[in-house]
């Protein structure tokens, strides 16, 4: 019964990511974030500790003004929450929006 409830009820996943690219979460990265978030059905909110915004809204995401080094809490609620969190974490921390990071500049 409990396992069944878990799979039917709202799945909630949370993670904290750090912005790694030098220019931070400006409009183009914010757009990428929103594009990825919108591939999922779950609700996604993002918080910088001060504001909680809709991770699927470009205007709200730009409002976070997340500079390089800023930590953001991503919360997903819905059946595909875990997949959404994984995809967003990869975009922010592994791909860093396909933009240069402060360390990367030193590499050949």
């Amino acid at each position: 019964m409990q396992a069944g409830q878990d799979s039917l009820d709202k799945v909630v996943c949370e993670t904290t990511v750090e912005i790694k690219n030098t220019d931070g979460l400006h409009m183009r990265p914010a757009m990428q974030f929103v594009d990825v978030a919108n591939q999922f059905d779950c609700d996604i909110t993002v918080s910088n500790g001060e504001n909680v915004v809709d991770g699927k809204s470009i205007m709200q995401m730009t409002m976070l003004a997340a500079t390089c080094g800023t930590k953001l809490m991503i919360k997903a609620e819905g059946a595909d929450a875990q997949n959404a969190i994984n995809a967003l974490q990869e975009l922010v921390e592994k791909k860093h929006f396909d933009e240069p990071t402060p360390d990367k500049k030193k590499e050949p």
Partner: protein
Amino acid sequence: MKFTDFVCFEATIPELQAKDRDGAITELVNSLDKAGKLKRGSREDVIKTVIERENQATTGMGKGVAVPHVKHPAVKDVVAAIGLSSTGIDFSSLDKQLVYSVVLLISPADNPDRHLQAMESIFRRLQQEKFRKFLRQSRSSEQIEDLFREVDENPAL
């Protein structure tokens, strides 16, 4: 960041003459240049790079507003100019709607954090339906300046 810290009210255009995107950008950049906000001789390159940026991805975020922007060495600090169009301009916005309020933002090339702070100030307000309505209904540079000063003084509004 307060709007009065970076919006050049001298460069406000309460009724854009341009009917298209590139024309509106050109008008606003020219206005900033006339107000002495751009490094001498950089005007044309600023226009070119803002349009190039816009071609990569629209800054028409929907709900009748667009925020064309670029990082450019023509400025030492962020500077913005406001332009309104009563007929509406096609920015190929995300929601396919015409744009009635344009905020042009030029940021220095070497200070990404400052750029983000200015964007945050702009979007915090543009997100508010009431603010968008007041902005769109403004008919003079003075009205626009009053609106921005009012929200600067009342962050809770």
